[in-house]
């Protein structure tokens, strides 16, 4: 009984783990035009660079960047292969045909079989107009959004919605 109550409490309390990114209205119609592959992700997820193997996938040893075989085995989620393929030449290209099916995990920073990509120094949301995130569809997810995003939306909701 205690076990059942514990498990029930965990799930009833609402869970941190989410399977997919909240829907972003109009995202599928936009081409990804960031100057580097995670540029727009950090608009909403300022702390993303603390988790180079994915948004909140936990800590990983920094030396994995220099030994990507370890990064691939221990930290690289298998579904990144599925949704993003095995990128080559820098790993910054997202196959458009898979975008729609994507779990909307942030794009992988790690390139299997190659050198890791050092995360950019950007740690604060970028508020340039051309990189303003899109509108979050509230009826698709209960996932709370960062305050920065809401402030931007009030300024101009018609700006390009190209964030991933």
């Amino acid at each position, binding site marked *: 009984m*205690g*076990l059942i109550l*514990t*498990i029930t409490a*965990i799930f009833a309390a609402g*869970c*941190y*783990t*989410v*399977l*997919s*990114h909240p829907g972003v209205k109009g995202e599928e119609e936009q081409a990804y035009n960031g100057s580097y592959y995670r540029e727009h992700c950090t608009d909403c997820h300022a702390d993303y660079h603390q*988790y180079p*193997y994915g*948004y*909140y*996938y*936990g*800590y990983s*040893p*920094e*030396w994995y960047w*220099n*030994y*990507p*075989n*370890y990064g*691939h*085995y*221990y*930290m*690289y*989620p*298998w*579904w990144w292969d*599925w*949704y993003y393929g095995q990128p080559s030449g820098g790993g910054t290209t997202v196959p458009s045909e898979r975008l729609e099916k994507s*779990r*909307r*995990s942030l794009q992988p920073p790690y390139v*299997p*079989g190659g050198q890791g990509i050092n995360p950019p120094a950007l740690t604060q949301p970028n508020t340039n107009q051309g990189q303003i995130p899109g509108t979050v569809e509230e009826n698709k997810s209960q996932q709370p959004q960062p305050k920065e995003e809401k402030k931007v939306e009030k300024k101009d909701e018609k700006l390009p919605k190209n964030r991933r």
Partner: protein
Amino acid sequence: MLSKIFSLAIILFLFLVSSIFSQEIDRNYLQVEEASAGNFFGVGARAMGMGGAQIATANDASGLVNNPARLAKVKRIEFSGGMTHQRLNNETGFIGNAQPLSSYYQNQSITQSNTRFSSANIVLPVPTYRGSLVFALGFNRMKSFDHAFHSTFIDPTTGTIDLDALALETGGINMWSFGGAIDLSPNISVGGAVNYWKGQDDYLQEYYVQPSTKLTSEIRERNRYLYDYSGWNAKLGFSVDASKFLSVGATIDFPTKFSIDQDFTFNYDSTDAISRDRVIIESEELGHYDLTHPYSFGAGAALNFKFVTLAGDVNFTDWSQLKPSARGGVDERLYKEIYQEVTRWHVGAEFNMPELATKLRIGFYADPIPFKSVYLKTDRRYFTLGAGFLIDQVMTLDVAWNHGINEFRDSFSQMIKESYTTDKFFVSLAYRL
């Protein structure tokens, strides 16, 4: 009574047959051996290379056994399997050259080796945008009953064998598990597993008493105890990465209720020294009883430096809370009197050498016997070594060696020993899609 209250025959035998002892047998010398209590064996070559310290460091399928919450750390679909080889040596006899004038033990040594398939696991991480959700299914060999004993008692007047005793025990308990883990925050995970336990214990005792004079009989006795175990329990685990450098974890093993079927066969064959009349007795008795194991609590911590991980675990079980069913014929008070609280502890380290795609491991663990014994001289301690190899970024091969000792002495003279040396070898292979 079928339950194994045979005075831990191995040990008590030393006491009973030795004429140098004059004390009366009292309750201090009574042993109740319940094979399913304790008898930790270890799961996973990575874990056992690190002395079994895994509550805060498991990062593979062994988390299903050691701390289900750590399954949340697995990001790729993993198939893994493992084998073990145990070589146990037991030496009995007198210590040094001292021998009593009246009678003495002949030093004996017996070795038992067993190679077994020990684990098969599948870990399935569910694609997530944030956090982790992982399920796992597995089979793991949790307890080993492999054990051997041989003792020979010499009649000094004739130089012939007066009594020869042999005990062989094989078997173990396997655990089928289904579990899962989920991240509750970036650095907090919780997990659980439901376990089905199934196993056997095959214990054989053989005694041979040779007539030392023309007035005594020749006796051969053979007792065989077969136990068939099955039971269910659950395990909860928690894991917290307090920082990049510190991880902690905790586990709760809920009570396991074992259903135990017994088959006891008794064979006795004696020939009277004078009349030469032969007496043969053969009997078989079937029985059944239930036995509930108590809660177990585990806690662990790990320090993660750049290329080095240091880990330590403690695991507490109050075995005096073993609870048999009334029909088992074993008085619960006897368990309370003889069994005791036990804290098993493990420490280990892992050194990463990424240039060589190799990890080296070292560890130590103490696994105290769960019952009180006036014969215990040195409790079970194991020193461990291990290595792991990352192959082509999709496969790991881990190997480990555990070397353990423990010793019993007679409680009176401290001159008769029963000394165990155990070597365990673990091999695990994992493939991640």
